[in-house]
């Protein structure tokens, strides 16, 4: 899986580092002082590195728990995100990470205990008001689970903190560690989907829609709160048929009444990220479409974005009540 593992000197002796290195005895271990030496230099090409990314084990010094951007949430008023990892094993062409980072290597912060302490600080400051913590912002929450043990570590901690809610957002089917433990009522396992036609051309290495539905079904059956994320919505001339088919396919095997939440989000990228991605993938048809720029964000033209959101909202309301549906980042 990894041919090279870069290890920050500070975490070289960390038990999590040792355990991960033990899993990959063939990997070359390369010591570095700070992970930024490997991850941040200019003159790197994300697309070339994506052919064979390395793992970087690092210590997250600060900024571990941050407030989410406005409009990001599933019903809570206090929303935070934290990233135990940067970058993703999958290769979704629409993903903003390609435009955000110069390197495609995976950074895994192994100091989970510091994240926990910061989460506790946020909780203390919120006077027991419910807080939401989103973990799948800069990475997929579960895809590296067998290596990172992220969910295995954090879910029991959230089980002990009922005021804290966590969303694990994923396209992965790595649910073994979840099925091994009792469901945590304040944890939502949220699965992202685009229609199968879009998945086939844009979501490289991502499990099929069917396999993800199957994973959701198993989790729901085991009592885990699960959620659906249709974010970003990707345009295609046949998008109405594609999304209608997807919704029918997804909701059929699931118990809609027990779905925690469904969210819908438009395709939007900060201008600089969009430019970087186009530079990386000039041959990608997705970015050759018509886009507009509003306040530094690139998106589909407003009328199209609205049309897609209205259509998908209408379709989703056939399956779930309005109280379960959260349009994220859509203009009012």
């Amino acid at each position, binding site marked *: 899986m990894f*041919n*090279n593992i*870069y290890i920050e000197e500070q975490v070289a002796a960390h038990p999590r580092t040792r355990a991960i290195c033990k899993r990959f005895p063939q990997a*070359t271990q*390369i*010591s*570095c*002082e700070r992970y930024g*030496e*490997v991850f941040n*230099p200019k*003159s*790197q*090409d994300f*697309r*070339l*590195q994506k*052919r*064979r990314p*390395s793992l970087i084990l690092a210590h997250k010094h600060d900024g571990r728990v941050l407030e989410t951007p406005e409009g990001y949430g599933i019903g809570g008023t206090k929303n935070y995100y934290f990233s135990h990892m940067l970058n993703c094993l999958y290769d979704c062409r629409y993903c903003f990470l390609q435009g955000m980072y110069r*390197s495609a*290597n995976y950074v895994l912060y192994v100091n989970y205990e510091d994240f926990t302490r910061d989460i506790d600080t946020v909780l203390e400051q919120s006077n027991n008001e419910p807080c939401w913590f989103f973990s799948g912002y800069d990475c997929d929450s579960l895809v590296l689970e067998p290596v990172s043990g992220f969910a295995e570590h954090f879910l029991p901690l959230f089980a002990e903190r009922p005021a804290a809610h966590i969303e694990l957002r994923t396209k992965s089917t790595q649910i073994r560690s979840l099925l091994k433990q009792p469901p945590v009522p304040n944890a939502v396992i949220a699965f992202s989907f685009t229609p199968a036609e879009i998945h086939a051309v844009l979501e490289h290495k991502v499990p099929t829609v069917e396999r993800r539905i199957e994973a959701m079904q198993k989790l729901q059956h085991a009592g885990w709160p699960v959620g659906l994320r249709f974010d970003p919505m990707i*345009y295609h*001339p046949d998008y109405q048929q594609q999304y209608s088919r997807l919704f029918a396919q997804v909701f059929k095997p699931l118990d809609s009444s027990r779905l925690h939440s469904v969210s819908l989000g438009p395709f939007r990228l900060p201008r600089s990220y969009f430019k970087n991605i*186009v530079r990386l*993938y*000039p*041959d*990608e*048809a997705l*970015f*050759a*479409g*018509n886009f507009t720029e509003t306040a530094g964000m690139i998106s*589909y*033209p407003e009328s*199209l974005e609205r049309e897609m959101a209205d259509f998908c909202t209408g379709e989703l309301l056939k399956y779930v009540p309005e109280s379960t549906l959260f349009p994220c980042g859509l203009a009012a």
Partner: protein
Amino acid sequence: MINIVTALPAEARPLRDHFKLHDKQQNTPFPLYRNDDMALIVAGPGKVAAAAATAVLAGAVPASTKSAWLNIGIAGHAHHAIGSAFIAHRITDQANGNRWYPPQTLEQSLPTENLYTVDLPEDNYPEDTVYDMEASGFYAVACRFSSSELVQCLKIISDNRAQPAKAVTAKLCSRLVADRLADIEQLVNALSGLAKEYNRWHAPHPELAQLAGRWHFSVSQQHQLQQLGRRWQALAAGESLWLEQLQNKNSATGVLEYLRQHLDNLAGNA
């Protein structure tokens, strides 16, 4: 295109013979040899010479596409066997402590190692690392002209504690490189292949030059034309951009407008 930088003529000789680099360039400050796909420059020992020669070579090869870069040379290590070869996965300039981590994106069979670039020959090999005198100068400069995934250093062990550097002759140096030609060729092919792939991704539409020759495009319009060419390749790959409807356009503005409209229609989400 791949550009090779060596320090010594004795390192370059087997490479020149193997890759048929017979065409010696005139009037260059460093000996420079090339064929259609490869250029080789002989820098002389030391990181400053390596940096200078790398810059000279970058100026001598086409800048319109990205080249791969490879520094090949002999090096020392406390105990690695004479003749063993390594790719550098970390380069440290011992004089100033600067470090670089050449991305290891290639599937290749050679092992990788830490590499220290020193200003004076190192006879004691105090650290468990390969010692050379050029890599930091080469790497820092080559990365200014290419993406770091395309820039690598290959070091062949010529001396160790049992067989010190003073025993290294020009003949031995050439033999050590010659004995590693199979590995070098594999690495050259892998790096060149990666550079070709990169350049294929970023190649402008082949008919853009034809359009630019027919109408007068301002600098700003040339940028717009390039963007439209990119969109064309993404949306209508393989189709000619030389549309019949363009023939009656009187100006570059008309050409750009028509192409933009045509592409918006093709994109289908206007």
